[in-house]
């Protein structure tokens, strides 16, 4: 029986309309030895995902123009090639109901936006080590 070697991607898709948050998340992603692929809003992330599923994880802002983070997760969960990608949702909203809504849509982790570098780093490490989509509250 031949063993097929599965290539594990080290790319992380980051979608946020805020350039400051994108830069911050991308820095942590790079620091963890991964390659950050940035999208400036939900539509751009959607376009990237349509043509490319080679991602180890994804980090989405919940509230973005065009397509929200939850819209993106719902789309990913309907596409077999994207279903395996763990997604962390980040949001500046304080409403805990949004955490529940994120998990219901299929998010793997949830991080409120008043995060410190350590919190973001730890949440991302958890996400990158997630073999399956098991919900994790950061």
């Amino acid at each position, binding site marked *: 029986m031949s063993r097929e070697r599965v290539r594990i991607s080290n790319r992380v898709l980051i979608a946020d309309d805020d350039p400051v948050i994108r830069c911050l998340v991308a*820095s942590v992603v790079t620091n963890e030895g991964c390659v950050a692929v940035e999208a400036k809003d939900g539509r751009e992330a959607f376009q990237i995902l349509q043509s490319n599923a080679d991602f180890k994880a994804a980090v989405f*802002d919940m509230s973005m123009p065009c397509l929200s983070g939850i819209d993106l997760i719902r789309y990913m969960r309907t596409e077999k090639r994207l279903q395996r990608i763990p997604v962390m949702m980040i949001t500046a909203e304080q409403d805990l109901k949004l955490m529940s809504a994120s998990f219901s849509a299929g998010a793997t982790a949830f991080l409120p936006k008043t995060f410190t570098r350590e919190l973001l780093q730890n949440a991302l490490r958890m996400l990158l080590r997630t073999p399956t989509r098991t919900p994790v509250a950061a």
Partner: protein
Amino acid sequence: MQNQITVNQVTITRAILEHRSSSSQIGTEEIDLSGLTSLAELKSIGEPDLVVELIDLYLKDGPERIQKIKTAAARADATDLRQAAHTLKGSSASLGFHQISEICEQLERLDWRDSHHRLDALTELLQYKFTRLREVLLDLRRSRLANNNR
């Protein structure tokens, strides 16, 4: 009703002036840069200073968001106003600029159709706080660039 508005205007104006007065006494000490400077640890050798990069992005994006808030307020566009305030709230909070984040939070939650004067006051306060923060950030930027070049 007119008296009520006048009282509110006076109250809000006084609040801003008192805030300015106490802020100027405190000087720059009230602006906590520890959240931003702690991000310097993420810098890799040979890469640009992340703190400088974040300052540049924030100082480019922040005024655009504030302008969007003002334009949306003038157009009475609640959706655009909330979106701009929401975004500025997120980046400000993540860099540790909690005063600006809190003002944005208030703007985001404001039922401003009933509170035009409060909207004006909050927008003015936001502009004022951002201008002060900008000065401090530019100082920090200069200082980091000077240290990096040594």
